[in-house]
């Protein structure tokens, strides 16, 4: 009994120590603006930010924006993966010499700054979902391609030899040996893609969007709603952490036989001998479906309002671009247009 209490005490102590840094920062965040050491106009106390977060959540506004942003990441990822994985399998498995030759060209492409591409994408696709999806897809494409190729090339040749000796057909070889063998590497590429594209998406949403957490942040900033801005920022950070931990957890679960590889993780690593349980899978599927459902609906709504508010998309570009030199007005204009559409309906 005494030992149990001692253990609990220790456990408790450990956790307090662990999060003491975070707690300290939150306390400072609360106190310093209140006391005046930090200008509370520029950085409101933490409690105000929390209030904003709750408000946004209650109005279900926050959930919609989160869903839209996640939807963009998922869709862009799917597009990139649909192109990159088959190509990677082909280059890594069969056309290895071609892979070597094309490598420098692809490396140059991957180095092309997505920011430089954003104006081009916007010109191409207009300020709609397609441009943002294109940015996400571009950012995801290269890590997925590279990691797929390398995953296939690093397959143990003895495995392939063994399967060949059994006269395995090319298709079966692909399905039963190559893909499962390269899967950990492919997943790594997917993970890098998700994290990089989430990063880029935030900025893309700041430039041209009407929904999404990045837009929420930018919009609040432009309308001088500072607590709301911080709330959106906190939301983005939390999303980032959740995404990162989820991906690493999945990697650990799916490829339990590989052992932990990623170093820069702060989550506890356990070597499990199992895949995902049915309940976990169900949970993931439900969440992802919800995101896709809500996200596509919201994206559709914003697209429709975009198109209907002007006669032609091209004209809209020129009007918008010429009218503003800073992005401040753009969001306001968007907002007005959306309102107009809704009013017109009534």
């Amino acid at each position, binding site marked *: 009994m005494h030992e149990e209490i001692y253990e609990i005490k220790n456990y408790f102590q450990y956790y307090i120590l662990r999060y003491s840094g975070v707690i300290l920062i939150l306390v400072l965040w609360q106190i310093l603006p209140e006391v005046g050491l930090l200008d509370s106009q520029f950085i409101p106390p933490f409690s105000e930010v929390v209030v904003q977060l709750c408000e946004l959540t209650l109005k279900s506004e926050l959930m919609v924006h989160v869903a839209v942003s996640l939807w963009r990441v998922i869709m862009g990822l799917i597009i990139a993966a649909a192109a990159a994985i088959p190509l990677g399998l082909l280059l890594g498995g069969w056309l290895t010499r071609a892979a070597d030759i094309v490598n420098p060209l692809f490396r140059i492409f991957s180095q092309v700054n997505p920011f430089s591409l954003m104006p081009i994408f916007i010109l191409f696709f207009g300020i709609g979902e397609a441009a943002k999806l294109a940015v996400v897809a571009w950012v995801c494409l290269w890590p997925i391609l590279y990691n797929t190729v390398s995953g296939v090339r690093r397959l143990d040749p003895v495995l392939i*030899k*063994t399967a060949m*000796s*059994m006269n395995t057909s090319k298709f079966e070889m692909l399905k039963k040996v190559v893909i499962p*063998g390269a899967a950990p590497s492919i997943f790594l590429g997917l993970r890098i893609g998700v994290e990089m594209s989430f990063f880029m998406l935030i900025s893309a949403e700041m430039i041209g969007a009407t929904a999404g957490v990045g837009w929420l942040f930018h919009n609040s900033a432009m309308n001088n709603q500072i607590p709301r801005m911080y709330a959106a920022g906190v939301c983005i950070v939390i999303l980032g952490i959740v995404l990162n931990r989820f991906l690493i957890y999945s990697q650990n679960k799916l490829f339990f036989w*590989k052992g932990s590889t990623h170093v820069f993780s702060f989550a506890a690593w356990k070597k499990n001998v199992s895949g995902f349980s049915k309940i976990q899978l169900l949970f993931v599927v439900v969440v992802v479906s919800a995101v896709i459902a809500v996200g596509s609906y919201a994206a559709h709504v914003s697209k429709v309002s975009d198109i209907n508010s002007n006669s032609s998309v091209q004209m809209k570009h020129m009007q918008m671009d010429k009218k503003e030199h800073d992005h401040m007005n753009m969001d306001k204009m968007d907002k007005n247009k959306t309102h107009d559409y809704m009013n017109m309906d009534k």
Partner: protein
Amino acid sequence: MSYENINIKNRQYKIVVDNIRKVYDVRSQNGQDNERFLALDNFNLKVKKGEFITVVGPSGCGKSTFLDILAGLSKPTSGKVYIDGEPITGPALDRGIILQGYALFSWRTVEKNIEFGLEIKKIPKEERKKISEKFIELVGLKGFENRYPHELSGGMKQRVAIARALAYDPEVLLMDEPFAAVDAQTRESLQEELLNIWEKTNKTIVFITHSIEEAVFLADRVVVMATSPGRIKEIINVKLPRPRINSQIRTSQEFNLSRNKIWELLHRDADKKQTEVSV
């Protein structure tokens, strides 16, 4: 001799290696010319059904090349290999290969690893399970069906590899230094186990090894190879009784005689070259 006669003659033996020659085109150092590297030359061998043949030779003498050709993974430049009188045209399920380094599919359980060949053979699920159960028991891994390779020791992994090769019932087993990655003690017990399995299943086995002791312990006949080009120097008959048990065989006189003979064969030319130089 007419074609039919050759065929009939060949069918007496399980494996007939008829004057195999393997040449590789290799780019030379300066990258300009293609040098030709003679890996195997004048290779003739006849293996009876149910025989256990081991192949020893110095590094790079072409042992693995020979095995690849037997497996159908590589084509000889000239000459043919016949299995049951029919020339082989490529890899097939009548031969099984076990390579150094286990090559287990780390994402499959022990059971599923063993069933791999059966899946290729398109055997239905129920039957697969029965067969894999049988072979799991044969290699002594009962209870480990649902374990994954990373949970197994080296010796256990090798046994899974053997079971996997046996499961789809090839008549010929080709083994390329399968016990090289295992520690010495496990190696000796695996050798005994392999002989047990061989006697129970009556397969024809061609076994490549670096270890002369291993070659003598296992084989009916030992093929001693020479290098550059890879060719058969001599084939030694091993007159040891079966079943071969570690404690009895390894200290016997006959064992040592055979071992020394092979050792001599492998080092004779090398020593000769040395004495020539010093003179």
